[in-house]
């Protein structure tokens, strides 16, 4: 990550984002109930939730940072560390396991030069395992960002990766 990008990611939340989070809190029956939604807003903007942003959101929701972090760290889809431009969620549950999940994982790891949980050198992809995606009739399956892909094989995986720069 370049220094400029680092600076941007550590910058305080801007007024518009703070306002959006405040609106979420207003709409919730209790402010803390907006926690997941607020963290997702931050993540959508910055790719992940930094310590500083977590503390800012906690203050807006009248929670301690530790309280909000106990929620943030619980969830599979809230990232507390930087991720690549695209996040690959590879299903590692049993319906996919039967249909070749291990082969798909090996192929992805080799192509990207990473292990599960890692980001490629160029910052393009982060590869994460995920629990059953509910796409079992097209196993093995994965998501890239918000897109779902099924019936994976080596050729299809290569073609899919090409679609994300």
């Amino acid at each position: 990550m370049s220094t400029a990008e680092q600076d941007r990611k550590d910058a305080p939340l801007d007024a518009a984002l703070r306002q959006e989070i405040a609106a979420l809190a207003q709409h919730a029956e209790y402010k803390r109930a907006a926690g997941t939604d607020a963290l997702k807003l931050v993540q959508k903007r910055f790719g992940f939730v930094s310590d500083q942003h977590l503390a800012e959101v906690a203050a807006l929701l009248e929670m301690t940072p530790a309280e909000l972090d106990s929620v943030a760290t619980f969830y599979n889809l809230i990232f507390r560390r930087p991720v690549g431009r695209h996040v690959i969620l590879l299903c590692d549950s049993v319906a996919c396991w039967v249909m070749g999940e291990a082969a798909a994982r090996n192929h992805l790891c080799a192509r990207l030069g990473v292990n599960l949980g890692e980001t490629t050198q160029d910052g393009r992809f982060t590869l994460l395992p995920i629990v059953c995606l509910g796409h079992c009739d097209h196993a093995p399956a994965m998501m890239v960002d918000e897109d779902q892909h099924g019936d994976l094989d080596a050729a299809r995986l290569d073609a899919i990766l090409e679609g994300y720069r």
Partner: protein
Amino acid sequence: MTTMEKPLTAMLQPGGIPLDVTGYERAGGYQALRKALTMTPEAIIGEVKRSKLRGRGGGGFATGRKWEAVPTGADAPRQRYLVVNADEMEPGSFKDRLLLEQTPHQMIESVIISAFAIQADIAYIFVRAEYVLALGRLARAVAEAQAHGYVGTNILGSGFALTIHVHASGGRYICGESSAMLTALEGRRPIPRSRPPRSAQSGLWGKPSVVNNVETLCNVPHIIERGADWFLSLSRGADGGTKLYGLSGRVKRPGLWELPLGTSLNEILEEHAGGMQAGYECRAVLPGGASTAFVMAADFDVAMDFTSVQKVGSSLGTGNIMALDDRRCPIGMLRNLEHFFAQESCGWCTPCRDGLPWVERILAAIEAGEGEPEDLETLAHHVAFLSSDGTFCDLAPGAMAPLGSALKHFRAEFEQHIKEKCCPWHDTAETWA
């Protein structure tokens, strides 16, 4: 069986694009709501009870009885909440996704009628975040329903008021546990709650709450419109209705089918899924998700209803079946299952938090040819210990269902791994086919 009606999927459109509000109305949608609003809440609950609708999310609890437990009347606490469990994360299950993505207005109508039955003020639809398409379509359907007077204050002039929120989860299997789901909605770390009190008395923010599965609720408008007797007639078993059965694994046509409740496993496997692919044999299935015990090939004539599947030592679960073929190692499959449960344990109760990773390590060792004969006793001990009520919720007992049955049915495979110090399937473990 004189009819082959499929109420849940009758309105599916070619291409999977859902009907918008006017299309849904034209197809007969929201008529059940109009009828329901002329009934008393007690009459609706009575009809649902008579229909013998049981929960389709895995628990199989009688829906009418769940609703009945909510205190109503002038001095009963408010707000009251209806929460739709659309957090479909049980491995091998993909049925609710179909209903959410392709029949969002059926979902909304179901929510309104069910909320009216328990006199709820607010409804949440709790959707897993990965169901991006469903989230968008539900949000649009709520907005359309609101614009047409089906949601809001004074719904269709009845005086009944309801707000519907669509909530996207942060992603964790335990959120599908009903009390953990309520805790998640409160913005807390979602660990299950100890009972009593039941959610019907003290649920979301301490107020009466009901959590129902997507498929369960989608039956409600049809029960109201056509009656409990009709609903009972759809089923081949004692409980009412159809079921969205699914099948995945090495079958010719993996998929989902709405069939009479009580359709046999054989019929689903052979007729609807087209049987196994050439060169594969089905040794066993998990009949309803990762939390159900193996059903072996000798029992494939079992009727897929709540009581019959229990008679062969398992449970209906979500009714989404996973086939284990002869080219995959049963111990490897178990290791995968227990890895899932160990990862997704919320970590609150010690037996679950510490026991499941231990089980996973033992299974991995056995699979790698490093197992010892006494490992089987340790696994059996975990099955006994974690299946008892030593934990707040059903995650650990669910995790023990496939393991307990495997220790019985795949004993020879366990012993072979330990004796030969390797996995007999080792050269197929990481292959595509």
